[in-house]
């Protein structure tokens, strides 16, 4: 937990949409997740992999701060080939 507070990568729930009012805490995350899965609708595995790569690049540029991106990349890799923090 201590490590998380020192990071600038946001790991708390952070989804919202301008102009939308939420009465249930789960709604903004579910809105995002549905849109994410829907983006892949009708694509084969290879097409989905390309879409994901493009999506990461677009979002990475939007975030811009490479130190934040390095944190995210490190966390994303954890546990995949036995890597730990």
């Amino acid at each position: 937990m201590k490590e998380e507070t020192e990071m600038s990568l946001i790991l708390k729930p952070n989804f919202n949409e301008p102009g939308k009012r939420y009465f249930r805490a789960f709604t903004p995350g579910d809105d995002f997740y549905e849109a994410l899965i829907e983006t892949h609708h009708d694509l084969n595995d290879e097409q989905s992999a390309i879409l994901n790569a493009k999506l990461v690049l677009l979002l990475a540029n939007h975030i811009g701060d490479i130190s934040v991106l390095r944190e995210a990349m490190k966390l994303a890799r954890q546990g995949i080939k036995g890597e730990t923090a």
Partner: protein
Amino acid sequence: MLSTYQYPKYEYVQPPEQKNGKTQRYPVVVVGAGPVGLAAAIELAQSGVPVVLLDDDDTVSVGSRGVCYAKRALEVLDRIGVGDACVAKGVSWNVGRTFFREEEVYNFNLLPQPDHKRPGMINLQQYYLEEYEVKRAQELPNLDLRFRNKVVSVAPQGDGATLQVETPDGIYTLETDWLVVADGARSGIRRMMNLEIEGKVFMDRFLIADVVMKADFPAERWFWFDPPFHPGQSVLLHRQADNVYRIDFQLGWQADPEEEKKPENVIPRIRAMLGDDREFELEWVSVYTFQCRRMNDFRHGRVLFVGDAAHQVSPFGARGANSGIQDTDNLCWKLKLVIDGKAPSSLLDTYSDERGFAADENILNSTRSTDFITPKSKISLTFRNAVLTLAREHAFARALVNSGRLSVPTFLTESVLNTPDTDSFAGDMVPGAPLDDAPMRENGENFWLLDRVANRFMALVHVADPAAVDAEFGQKIEALTKAPIPLEVVLVAPQAGKSPSGLRVFEDYTGRYAERFDSEPGTVYLIRPDQHVAARWRSFEAARVTAALAKATCNA
């Protein structure tokens, strides 16, 4: 199988029409004595409307079926007189745990706040709920519950409907001004009227096993993604009354329902989950598929559809029976006002609009849950498992874990019955909101707000000191309560005290009401008979209350 419950067999009584050969006309006929039709008939009868309730069977639900009853449904059941019996028999719970493979990755609490009468959810076999409702229905002299009365044809007319009803004594005719249709997902009336219900079927099968066993599992909902005892699929465990546990195994679309139902195939699945040492007995087994769909319009002239007859959802989230019970709560006060000539029949269109809005929300949430639980593509499964992996460490991913978004009432924010805010308020008690509960006190007696704010319009007027309310204010309020639409005005105050004008005083002795409603001296809330907010202001003006009341009843 079926050892813990003795099914009642209700007596068939020959209907008066078949005894004396005369056709009769009734104000309201309800078709279908399931949990929703019973709730509708009881609520109408309690409000003074005579009701005939027809059911083709003579017992309650066979099998436990709908087992989760949410806080909001319990609040409605309280008002029809069966809430206490359900909560006493059921297993109350608030905490749900979600496991991925062998580890817990996420848990939720449905009711993290104190000071609510009812828990977030109870688990209770559907047959108990129906049994309590039948008992309540049979106490009401103006409710005529007819078992083994099967509707075989329906002819809607401009001013009502004519039904042909089959009993062991043959077929008779029955006429009604209003028909409430609660005959379930495969609604016979809907089919006879050639009405469409559209949506999507999910290509998956699930096995339900009710298991009787002695176990010390906590009263919590446990959900597994890809557990070692049922790899690649999901499993859900709920504790019900009488030491009965509901286990729900995802099987996949290829599974053969008849084969899967056989005890020799069910028992090894349960053993794999519970271990070889656990003694258990199978009580009930079923294999189901499901669909998410709704009728376009729940009102067709004088015919009103409620519950599964009008809309169906996937079971993840317990949004079926719970939303059906809320349908009746929305419908009955409106139908009563229309029958009494106090509101135009367009008020019933708002039943369809409001509950259609709720059905869309329920379908949206249960479809999202289903898509998360049973991913439809490889990439969807990859994302799902990535969320579950990240959820062990990171709060943002836990918020995305969707093992069912459990039934909560809809905020009817788009309703034409609402009077939009002109003053500013914090919190969620917006026009259209379902009321939050709060502890209250009246004449030294403690009670729950939701137990005393219902069945009629109420205005809650917040004052600092009830004793200081002057006579002029009292007169203004008295004039309001003499309007044709029944309205009761109650003072809410942080302290006890007698109002000189004789108004009732609710003492907000914990301050929860002030907190949850962002209420302060001067604040007025106008509450509908179904406990939704109709309007609110920072100061009392009789003319505004009158206008909002007219808007909330389509009399504007």
